[in-house]
C-alpha cells in the first residue's frame, strides 16, 4: 500500500511543498543570506560580513525595544496565566451561568489586533483625559500598562479555555481520594490539580510568552511606538527599520535584527519548554 501511495506524490505532497518553499523556506534562507549584505534593492547587494549584526547592537532603539519587550513579556505572561487559571477554577465549580461567562470571556480573542488596539486607545485615552493624565502617546509608562491591559483582555479567555479543558480531565477519583485523606481544598489544588494540569500550563505559558514577545498589531494600533519609540516593541522596531528609515544600510540591518529576533524567540521557547515539561507528571 505504501508503494501505491508513494507514486502519487505530485498530487498529495507537491502542492503543499511548493507553497511551503515559496512562502517559508525560500524567504527564510534568503533572509539569512541578506542579513550579511548591504543593499537598497535586492538585485544589488554587497557582502559586509558581520557588520550588520554589530550595528544591530549599537542601535540604541533596538536595545531599548528589547528591554521594553522583555518587561512586557514577563508581566503579561504572569498576569494572563494567573487570571486565566483562576477563572478556569471558578468556571469548573459547576456554577449557574458558566457557559455564558465562558462565552463572554473568550469573545475578545476573535477581534483582530488592529481593531483591538483602536478600541482600547479610545477607551484608555478617554480615561486618562478624565483623570487629568497625559495621553497614551505622550507617556511610555501608560503605553506599557495599556498594552498589558489590552493583552490580558484578549488572551485571558483563550488560556482560560485551555485550562478548563485541562481541569476537566483531572480524574474525579483522584480528587475524591485526596478529600478522604483529609486534604483541604487548597491542598487539593496545589498537590493534585496543579500537577495534573501541568501540560496545559506548558501550552499556555508557551503561547503567552511567544504571543507577547512577537506582538505587533496591538503595539502598532495602540501606541504606534510613541512617544519617540519609547513604547516600541521588537517586532515594530524591525518593521520600522525596514520601511521607515532611509539610508543604504538599514534594510540589511533590519534583516539582521530579524535574525536576532528569530534566535531570541527560538531560545525562549526551548528554555521554557524544557523547564515546564520537567514538571509534567505521567497521567
Amino acid at each position: 500500500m505504501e508503494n501505491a501511495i508513494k507514486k502519487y506524490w505530485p498530487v498529495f505532497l507537491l502542492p503543499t511543498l511548493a507553497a511551503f518553499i515559496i512562502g517559508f523556506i525560500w524567504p527564510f534562507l534568503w533572509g539569512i543570506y541578506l542579513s550579511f549584505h548591504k543593499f537598497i534593492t535586492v538585485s544589488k547587494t554587497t557582502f559586509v560580513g558581520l557588520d550588520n549584526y554589530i550595528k544591530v547592537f549599537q542601535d540604541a532603539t533596538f536595545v531599548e525595544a528589547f528591554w521594553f519587550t522583555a518587561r512586557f513579556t514577563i508581566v503579561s505572561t504572569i498576569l494572563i496565566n494567573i487570571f486565566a487559571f483562576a477563572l478556569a477554577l471558578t468556571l469548573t465549580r459547576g456554577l449557574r451561568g458558566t457557559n455564558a461567562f465562558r462565552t463572554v470571556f473568550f469573545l475578545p480573542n476573535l477581534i483582530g489586533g488592529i481593531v483591538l488596539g483602536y478600541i482600547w486607545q479610545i477607551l484608555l485615552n478617554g480615561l486618562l483625559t478624565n483623570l487629568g493624565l497625559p495621553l497614551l502617546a505622550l507617556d511610555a509608562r501608560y503605553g506599557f500598562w495599556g498594552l498589558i491591559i489590552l493583552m490580558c483582555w484578549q488572551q485571558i479567555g483563550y488560556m482560560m479555555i485551555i485550562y478548563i479543558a485541562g481541569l476537566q480531565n483531572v480524574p474525579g477519583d483522584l480528587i475524591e481520594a485526596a478529600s478522604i485523606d483529609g486534604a483541604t481544598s487548597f491542598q487539593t489544588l496545589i498537590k493534585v490539580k496543579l500537577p495534573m494540569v501541568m501540560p496545559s500550563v506548558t501550552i499556555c505559558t508557551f503561547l503567552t510568552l511567544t504571543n507577547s514577545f512577537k506582538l505587533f498589531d496591538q503595539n502598532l494600533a495602540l501606541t504606534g511606538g510613541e512617544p519617540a519609540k519609547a513604547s516600541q516593541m521588537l517586532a515594530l522596531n524591525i518593521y520600522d527599520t525596514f520601511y521607515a528609515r532611509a539610508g543604504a544600510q538599514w534594510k540589511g540591518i533590519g534583516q539582521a535584527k530579524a535574525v536576532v529576533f528569530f534566535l531570541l524567540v527560538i531560545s525562549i521557547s526551548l528554555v521554557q519548554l524544557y523547564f515546564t515539561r520537567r514538571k509534567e507528571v505521567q497521567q
Partner: protein
Amino acid sequence: MAKKTYHDGAVSGARRVVDAALIVLLTALCLLWIYPVILILINSLKLETAISTATVFTLPTSETFVGLANYVHGVTQMNFLSSFGYSVIITVTSVALIILCCSMCAWYITRVNILASKLMYLLCAFSMVVPFQMVMFTLAKTADTLKLNTPFNICIIYLGFGAGLAVFMFTGFMKSVPLAIEEAAMIDGCNPLQIFFKVVFPILKPTAISTAILETMWVWNDYLLPTLVLDIKKYRTIPMAIQYFRGSYGRVEMGPMMACIMITVIPIIILYLACQKYIIEGVVAGAVKG
C-alpha cells in the same frame, strides 16, 4: 463520623454563599469585559463634534444622537464593501486551500515512511515558531516576483505560511487512524485518490473543522502580511482599511471610524455566537496538538 457529617453540612452552606458571591463577581467582570465594545457602539451613534477624549464616556443626548449617519459615512468613505469582499475572498480561498492540500500532505507523510516525509514534518513544526518578521521582507519580494500580489493569488502564500499548523494538526490525528480501513479499500480496488477522498477525508472531518477555525481566525485578522504583499492603493482587507483610514487623514474622523470598527466587530460576534461550540473545541484541539 457524626462530626464529619456536621462538618460537611457547614461546608455546603458556606459553599452556597461563596458560589453566590462568585456569580455576582463574575457578572460584574463580564460587564467590564464587554464594556469596551459597548463604549465604541455608543460613541458611533454620536455627532462628530460631540466625540472627544474628554467626552467619550457621556451618553448621546437628543442633540448629539445621529443614528446611523456615521455608519453610512464610514462605509462610503472607507469603501468598506470592497474591503469586506476582499477579506472574504482571501479568507475563504486560503482556508479551503490549506484544508485540502495540508490534509492530503499529512496523509502522505504519515503513510509513506521515507526521509522526505520526516523532514517535511519537522520543517512544518519549525515554521510555527519562526516569527513573521524573519521572512516578511523577502516574502514580500518573492510574492512580487511570482505575481502572487493579488487577493486571488495570495492564498498560495497563506498555504505556505499556514501549512505548519495545519500539517501538524492533521498528522497528529492521522497517527491514531487505523490502517485496516484503508487497506480494505485498496483491496476493493480503490486508487490512493479514491481512498483519500472516500475513506480518509470523512474521518478527518472533526480535525478539518478545528483547523479551519484556527486558520480563519488568523487569516481574517491578519494585518501585516496583506499590507506587505498587496498593493494598498488597489486592494484593502478590513484590517488594512481600518489602519489606512486612520493614517491617511490629518484629523481622524472619530465617528465614522468607530462605526467602521463596529461593522467589523458585529459579524464576528454573530458568527461566534452561532458556532461557538466548534470554535471552542477548535481552540482546545489546537492547544493539545501544539
